[in-house]
């Protein structure tokens, strides 16, 4: 059974149909790239999946749960991790605290108020993975842009989610970092389902996975990158020819 199912999902803002009858299924452990021009409904789709925006119609099911009744925190607790386009980390916390706050644990007020032990081994492991061990006690604000991207990915991994939603991870990264990110995402697939929204075709190519092209709030084409880029409609709307 699919991990995430969107069926005929719609949402409009003041008459503008940001998402219009979108149908999409993501399998457990799948790596999927989603492409599409601006305004195709990529961000709204992620907002709907994570409970930030309620759809006007259609069904959204994640791991058997109806996601139309769940808020952001609820979606995170069910196992959806989301990375924003602009890296958002807690700048006044240390790198280590950023990870610590993201680890799977009881999220309740009183649980955190009296929480004692921390899983330091797991923190060390994650810091090693995102290569920030030597910045452990620095404030996140002092990191470079690329390092913040990595830290945010580390925070997502600390959540140990079933599904990772990643918005334009390659933005602002060097070529070397981009390649490393693509490799990391490929590694992660299998243990986690990973959905990447991306503009950068080189990056999508590097991901080497199934691609979905969105246009005007619905799925235009789906398949391998070669298949999708051969699709005449895709060429027309996306490449603007």
């Amino acid at each position, binding site marked *: 059974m699919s991990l995430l199912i969107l069926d005929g999902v719609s949402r409009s803002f003041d008459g503008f149909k940001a998402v219009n009858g979108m149908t999409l299924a993501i399998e457990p452990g799948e790596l999927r790239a989603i492409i599409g021009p601006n305004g195709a409904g990529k961000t709204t789709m992620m907002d709907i999946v*994570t409970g930030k925006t309620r759809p006007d119609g259609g069904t959204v099911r994640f791991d058997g749960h109806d996601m139309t009744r769940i808020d952001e925190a609820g979606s995170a607790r069910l196992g959806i991790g989301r990375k924003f386009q602009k890296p*958002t980390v807690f700048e006044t916390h240390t790198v280590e605290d950023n990870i610590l706050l993201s680890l799977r644990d009881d*999220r309740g007020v009183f649980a955190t108020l009296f929480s004692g032990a921390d899983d330091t081994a797991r923190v060390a492991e994650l810091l090693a993975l995102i290569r920030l061990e030597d910045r452990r006690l620095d404030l996140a604000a002092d990191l470079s842009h690329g390092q913040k991207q990595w830290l945010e990915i580390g925070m997502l991994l600390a959540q140990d989610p079933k599904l990772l939603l990643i918005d334009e991870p390659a933005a602002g990264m060097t070529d070397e970092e981009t390649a490393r990110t693509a490799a990391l995402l490929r590694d992660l697939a299998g243990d986690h389902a990973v959905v990447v929204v991306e503009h950068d075709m080189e990056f999508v190519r590097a991901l080497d996975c199934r691609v979905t092209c969105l246009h005007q709030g619905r799925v235009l084409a789906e398949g391998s990158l070669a298949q999708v880029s051969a699709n005449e409609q895709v060429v027309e709307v996306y490449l603007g020819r």
Partner: protein
Amino acid sequence: MEKGNDAVPAPRSGHTATLNRKTLLNTRGTIFLCVLAAVAVGVPYLNATGMLPDYAVSLIGKYLCFALLAIALDLLWGYCGILSLGHGAFFALGGYAMGMHLMREIGERGVYANPDLPDFMVFLNWQELPWFWWGFDTFWFAALMALFVPGLLAFIFGYFAFRSRVTGVYLSIITQAMTYALMLAFFRNEMGFGGNNGLTDFKDVLGYDLQSQDTRIGLFVLSALAVAVGFLICRAVVISKAGKVIISIRDAESRTRFLGYRVEGYKLFVFVLSAMLAGLAGALYTPQVGIINPGEFSPANSIEIVIWVAIGGRGTLVGAAIGAVIVAASKTILTGLYPEAWLFVLGAMFVFVTIFMPRGVLGVWDGMIDGMWRMRGMDPNERRLRA
């Protein structure tokens, strides 16, 4: 950005059992508590030896109540980023709860010598005590209410506001509307809280005469103790994991939500705790100044609390207390010497601090220390972690 982020000295490499845990008492907190203890002992001593006039004891006691109030607001604003422009309301409610008990204590000694009703009710021709005055003849009930009523109001208000994600300026404005509405309501005689005049002419508390210097000293020491306890509670919250979540909410609310934290719950917790501490400050304030009236609810009062915190340095707790004392003391001095000048000075403080000292007095201090570290060729982050 915030420099309140002091951590235990922890080795830069290697993993100990618990990482990056701050202690309840860092250097600054220890100094603060020592100064507080010195004041709690020194002021009564100086008073006993005649070096400090009697009125000064109550005056400094009043400043201590303000300091507690400022610490409460700092927990909310400095750490959680919620700017309440209505914290005076919680303070006043605590003050009224205690004032109601003190009114009941007057008993037959009032002007109308009515054993069952406070003077103002006799004056208004009321026949019996309204239900919301029941129980206030017991001290412990009143003391409980001084915490419970502000807490309950904060809970109800916060529950709705945070659930519907009213944030930032909008939240500030409706907290201001809240205290304004309460002020108008308390000004009405029909409300049963003494209307315009408020509650006053108190005689004694728990059998101790409020006019006697011994009682005043007792209240003063109690206030110092309350500041210490309030500080330690806030500090404990701030250094806990919940405290880190609260700071996270201030810096990146959306990210915190997507990590699975129910932001509403945390905000509500901080809001209620802060309101209860404010209520405690109010309960200690009333017997020391001898009156509580609806003016305490005025929006201007609440904004003044904010400037205490801003001047001292928000997100530092200690700074908030320092700011409260600085501003309140300058008010006492200036309104005595040049009454015309006070609002100019206060106004200028608002403008100056927000533009030139956004991190307050303690921020400037930290900046100077950091500068000295740099001059010695060391990384200021190092100092911050060792603080």
